[in-house]
């Protein structure tokens, strides 16, 4: 597999949200608007790239038996870095993402890529894999956030397209499940065609 395929597989073919169905909690929890989705996606991308990099660098030194706890400590370290930086530089986004920032640490995508990819591949492929998967995740979250924001408030990226409130339920909890359900169904349909 060449590096380009390695990079692009996260977008459609192995999209973590739409195809692999990983990382559902932040996907549903933070996508009340496109900006929140994008912010969460980029924060996760940073953690994915850095943890893939760290894991692929030290994979030969970690005894097999303790590799999962070691990976978790690496991931938790980068999550803490993201958490503190966001608190300092983007306080508004930090407020609206809230609990879901520390919860990146239990996002199955991050540990999944560390275990399935970075612990078996060299540094460059691991970084590219992390970047591709992370951006695929960010893409999915932004798409879901845009649809919900549009259906709920008639806006995209905070820009009002239709005046007044539309169907508020799409910004609330049930809307997250319903929109994601239909998006996955549409993507299944497109993949079969």
């Amino acid at each position, binding site marked *: 597999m060449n590096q380009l395929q390695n990079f692009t597989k996260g977008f459609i073919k192995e999209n973590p949200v739409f195809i692999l*169905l*990983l990382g*559902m*909690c*932040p996907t*549903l*929890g933070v996508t009340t608007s496109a900006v929140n989705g994008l912010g969460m996606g980029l924060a996760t991308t940073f953690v994915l790239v850095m943890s893939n990099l760290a894991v692929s660098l030290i994979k030969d030194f970690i005894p097999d038996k303790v590799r*999962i*706890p070691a990976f*978790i*400590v690496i991931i*938790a*370290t980068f*999550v*803490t870095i993201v*958490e*503190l930086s966001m608190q300092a530089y983007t306080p508004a986004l930090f407020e609206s993402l809230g*609990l879901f920032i*520390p*919860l990146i*640490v*239990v*996002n*199955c995508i991050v*540990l999944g890529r560390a275990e399935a990819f970075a612990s078996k591949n060299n540094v460059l492929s691991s970084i590219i894999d992390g970047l591709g998967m992370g951006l695929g995740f960010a893409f999915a979250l932004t798409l879901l956030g845009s649809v919900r924001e549009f259906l709920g408030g008639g806006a995209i990226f905070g820009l009002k397209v239709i005046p007044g409130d539309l169907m508020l*339920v799409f910004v*609330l*909890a*049930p*809307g*997250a*499940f*319903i929109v*994601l*359900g*239909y998006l*996955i*169904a*549409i993507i*299944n*349909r497109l993949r*079969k065609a």
Partner: protein
Amino acid sequence: MEYFVIIIGSIFVSNIVLTQFLGICPFLGVSGKLSTSIGMGGAVLFVITIATMFTWLMQHYVLNPLGLEFMQTIVFILVIAALVQMVEIILKKISPSLFQALGVFLPLITTNCAVLGVAILTVQKDFNLLEGVVFAMSNAIGFTLAIVLFAGIREHLDIMDIPKQMKGMPIALLTAGILALAFMGFTGLV
């Protein structure tokens, strides 16, 4: 009275799965059959309660006095991971029948964000130890309620005639959405 508000609030009004989106992975993954969903609910109840107790003690007797609050995420996830391992070993030794029932679910729970989420929420809400434990248990009961209801519906969906593209995850998510709508009816109860 205060405890009553915590219990009703966390089971119904802000249900951990259907309004807070924590623990979605097991909610969608282990809800195919009613019996497995009950097992998962039991395991979560067990682990969340113990984990919240230990993380609360860590926060108030180790992290706060030493001024290491920023280490919260790392410490909590390590405590939970170690705890799950320990529970697994102890259960295997003292109660093989309970281990049989919960065993397969225990490793999955380390990456269940409900456990870490409830532990962090308990600290954020400034609960004392007893309130924290009640809060954790009622959240776990809320999780069990949601997953058992959901599994019951999904068992019926299996024998329904569903459009091909909607089979599996899409219809499950739509069902969860409708369930979440139903739970919105509890808003404003406490």
